[in-house]
């Protein structure tokens, strides 16, 4: 896909994504996982802080 000697070909590249069928379920799940990761790491270091207190 990468190497495009020659001409720019903008339109072949986006199959006009219709918004109607574009579900964002995966995005929702991904940001929840991201949030969970942040919270877990934060509490891991916090427990280190408490244990050394």
């Amino acid at each position, binding site marked *: *896909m*990468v190497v495009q000697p020659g001409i720019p070909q903008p339109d072949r590249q986006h199959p006009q994504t219709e918004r109607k069928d574009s579900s964002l*379920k*995966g*995005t929702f*799940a991904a940001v929840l996982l991201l949030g969970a990761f942040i919270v877990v790491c*934060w509490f891991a270091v916090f427990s280190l802080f408490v244990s050394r207190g």
Partner: protein
Amino acid sequence: MTTEKTLSLRDRQVDQATSRLSLAYLFVAFSAFGIAALAGMLQAMVRGGLITLPGGINYYQILTAHGVLLGLVFTTFFIIGFLFSGMARTTGGSLPVAARSLGWSGWSLMVAGTLMGTVTILQNDASVLYTFYAPMKASPLFYIGMALVVVGSWVAGWGIFAAYRRWRRDHQGSTSPLFAFMAVATMLLWQIATLGVAIEVLFQLIPWSLGWVPEVNVLLSRTLFWYFGHPLVYFWLMPAYISWYINIPKIIGGRIFSDSLARLSFVLLILFSIPVGFHHQLMEPGISAGWKLVHVILTLTVVIPSLMTAFSLFAVFETTGRAKGGRGLFGWFGKLPWKDVRFFAPMVGMLMFIPAGTGGIINASNQLNAVVHNTIWVTGHFHLTVGTSVALTFFGIAYWLIPALTGRRLTSTVNRLGILQTVFWTVGMLLMSGAMHYLGLQGAPRRTDYTTYFDHSTALGWMPYQQLMGIGGLFLFLASVLLIGILIYLGFFAPKGFTEYPIGENGDTAEVTPRILERWPLWIGLSAFLIAVAYGYPIYELIQHAPPGSPPIRTW
């Protein structure tokens, strides 16, 4: 295709005059990068006890070179070069003459300053690290050089503003191109942020290092530095975000998720990334806990635009991956163009921003900061943020930007080598930065030459991980050599031809971008207000109840 035709195709993206300007910035950026990568590898090997530096070279000397040349020189030159090119690309293919001459004047000042700084470091007269921490004192030429770099970057920023002003004048009533808006926001943040370090250098460090005043207010100098130091990291990140918001959707064959959301996140970054510097001074005596709390709260506010960015990027990936046939909750992920280095390198950068940003939230939390402050955890943290997320994005940009500007082709061999380069860099950073995070939690300090603390058992226990850092450093150095080789090839030897300068289109064509987002005086005013609230009284106190001044000290 004839050479003439490819030339005119290139010119339709970015004209030759702008290409030359942009390439001049990139050239200095990657020259500084090459020297500093060598220094970085040596540091990691020295700390692990794998080598000792030859010829009496001091550890802190190369550490200063590494921090200055990467943190200040590589990033600033790359960013300005990239922004000029994108400004031209999205405002009609060229820059107004005034913008170009400001661009060249800025470049000359910055090059002069970089040379002065580098020479004084090489002469071992400036081993004060890139944070210039007084009361360590460098040669006045070092500070003057750094001041020239900052002033040069202001002049270049005015060039960006001039190009933006021309576009607005010629298109009254229309919303500016997203790239132009974001470039202006980035350079505006930079102008406001560098005021702190400019005041520190001009009014405190230069007179003191020349011997005109005997003593320096250390607490004030550190406060002014960190007024600048935190927005500095956003100055590195914003161009990476620009690429993620604007170049990446086009590269993967998708569209920008939301133009307004992207602009709003940049406005929030201007507002909330400056009045937060005390989160670097949480262990600082002489600043009251209440004011530190104010800064911590504002710091955690910056999480919002970052999470907005994460959300809209995931949304672009999911929409595009689904359009390509990805099914299920995460099926779209595999549909992304993983074999295209223009996507792969920045995407790895984005993924690494997840642990990187998480580390930042930990650093900024007062109690957790007590665990990690001044340990090598912090160094591990920013090698993920700027050293991986930002650096890989910049590499990914350079792979298409340089051939686009020189009228050459990103060949499939270069694409494969670029992917290999990204893998080496990532493996190196995971080893080095992973070991740094672990060591930091055990208490190993940053900014420290090889030592076993008289064979203390705790310090001896760190040694295997320090060696792992050294091995990571070797991978990183290999990746750096590969990168420089590829970029020289792309700049001078790759076959002539056309390389696309990818600019995404807004996916939501019905969306109307609120005009208020482009009312700069409003955002500058609000920013000044927040800065006055967060810094006004504390700085007044630092001056009224100044700690005893310190004479200069040479620690090396």
